[in-house]
């Protein structure tokens, strides 16, 4: 009760609510928080997706055997692979399954049987084992000339490098958004201070400490930041609920956002953003006003 009375009393001294200096602040903060939420959500989803792909692909190799290869050569190469130390499982992919994998690109009007499709052999390897790929390729080629062993690690590494850069860009964007939010609050606080300068002078004359005057601005900024942050987080939640199930609906061979909307971190981020926006607004307003007041005698 005493705290509420103090807050209430603070609000009475300066008519900040009706001065227009913070009228658009909640909307600007809402947009900033929404963009930050997208950035944060993007980082989480990107990181998870890459980890998932990495887990799947570092343990997998694909051998393409030319369509013209005989069944005997196919059996020989299967035997060779099974005898290879680091290979934990070997599976010959049936033509029907190959056709199903190609269907998204070729459609269902093309007769798969009429195409000279290579036979695919899916290899599971021990992710911790060191495999001499050059030797394995050489041995496979000696049995089936023209066979191609695809190691996903190479392009996965390139993808990982690209993702690190992408994550850095997203992080930089989030920092810039935070900086823009701070500048907006600084501008609003300075405007409010200029509008209410005569009253601030009276409070100063009556013996108000700088913290007392700054407290009124920070109280207002906290409220505006929380309100804007809540709107932004709400928009972020709607985006999560729309986009992530849509990504799952793509039914790609490798999943995007593997944890889906049940990922606690996504919601934790959205819950934490409004208080963070309120806190940043509050501290920015406080420091801005204190710096200005320090110029008074």
């Amino acid at each position, binding site marked *: 009760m005493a705290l509420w009375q103090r807050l209430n009393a603070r609000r009475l001294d300066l*008519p900040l609510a009706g001065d227009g200096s913070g009228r658009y602040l909640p909307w600007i903060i809402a947009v900033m928080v929404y963009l930050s939420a997208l950035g944060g959500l993007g980082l989480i989803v990107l990181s998870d997706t890459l980890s998932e792909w990495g887990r799947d692909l570092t343990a997998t190799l694909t051998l393409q055997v030319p369509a013209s290869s005989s069944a005997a050569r196919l059996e020989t190469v299967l035997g060779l692979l099974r005898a290879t130390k680091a290979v934990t499982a070997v599976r010959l992919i049936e033509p029907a399954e190959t056709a199903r994998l190609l269907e998204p690109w070729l459609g269902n009007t093309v007769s798969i049987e009429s195409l000279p499709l290579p036979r695919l052999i899916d290899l599971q390897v021990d992710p911790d084992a060191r495999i001499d790929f050059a030797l394995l390729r050489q041995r496979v080629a000696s049995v089936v000339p023209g066979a191609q062993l695809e190691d996903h690690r190479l392009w996965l590494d390139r993808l990982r490098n690209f993702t690190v850069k992408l994550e850095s860009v997203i992080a930089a964007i989030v920092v810039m958004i935070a900086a823009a939010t701070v500048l907006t609050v600084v501008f609003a606080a300075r405007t409010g201070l200029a509008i209410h300068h005569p009253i601030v002078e009276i409070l100063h004359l009556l013996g108000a400490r700088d913290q007392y005057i700054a407290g009124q601005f920070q109280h207002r900024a906290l409220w505006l930041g929380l309100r804007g942050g809540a709107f932004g987080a709400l928009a972020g939640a709607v985006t999560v609920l729309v986009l992530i199930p849509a990504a799952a609906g793509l039914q790609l061979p490798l999943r995007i956002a593997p944890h889906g909307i049940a990922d606690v971190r996504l919601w934790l981020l959205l819950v934490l953003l409004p208080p963070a926006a309120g806190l940043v607004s509050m501290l920015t307003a406080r420091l801005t006003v204190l710096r200005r007041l320090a110029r008074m005698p």
Partner: protein
Amino acid sequence: MVTLENIGKRYDTGSEVLRDVSLNLEPGSFHFLTGASGAGKSTLLKILYLAEQQSRGVLNLFGTDVAVADRQVLAALRRRIGVVLQDFRLVPHLSVRENVALPLRIAGTPERQIDDNVGELLNWVGLADKMEARPATLSGGEQQRTAVARAIIGSPELLIADEPTGSVDDELAVTLVRLFERMNQLGATVVIATHNIDFVRRFAHARFHIEAGVLSGPLLP
């Protein structure tokens, strides 16, 4: 209680508006400060109530050298001073009650005590029926009494009024002086600045006179 030694004040690169002002105000004293417009009265008062800093010299207020005091100490010193300015400087969006309560709120006084003290004081200055009125709806005399109530609510040790005859007629200015005299009897030190020497002669108090930034006195009534 209040000591000024060789105070000088200069704005930017202009000439000095106060020159070697020295004075000593004993606790419980009552002084007028007279001088023509532009003589330096308001500047001297601003230095006294800590709205401006002197360019040189020493101001010792309640035993504290203000030149070396930090901002917290300066704020605490201001709370020991009550000021009534010519234009009253009431906060327009606050009611009479809230305006008068401001010094106590700033000092962190409990709300119940604020309500009691403000009610009692407004009754004393004859504004009990105007508690919820906004300053814009008050007459000049009522605004002045509100400003006086705000100045004395915190029982200040030093009371200052700048040109009390400036915004109201002489009769109301006399009322202010009478209120200040009652506060003086309770122990407050009082300084009232005015250009109107005829007005000052109606009271039996010593005065300082300032001319072109140079202070003389105290001159006995």
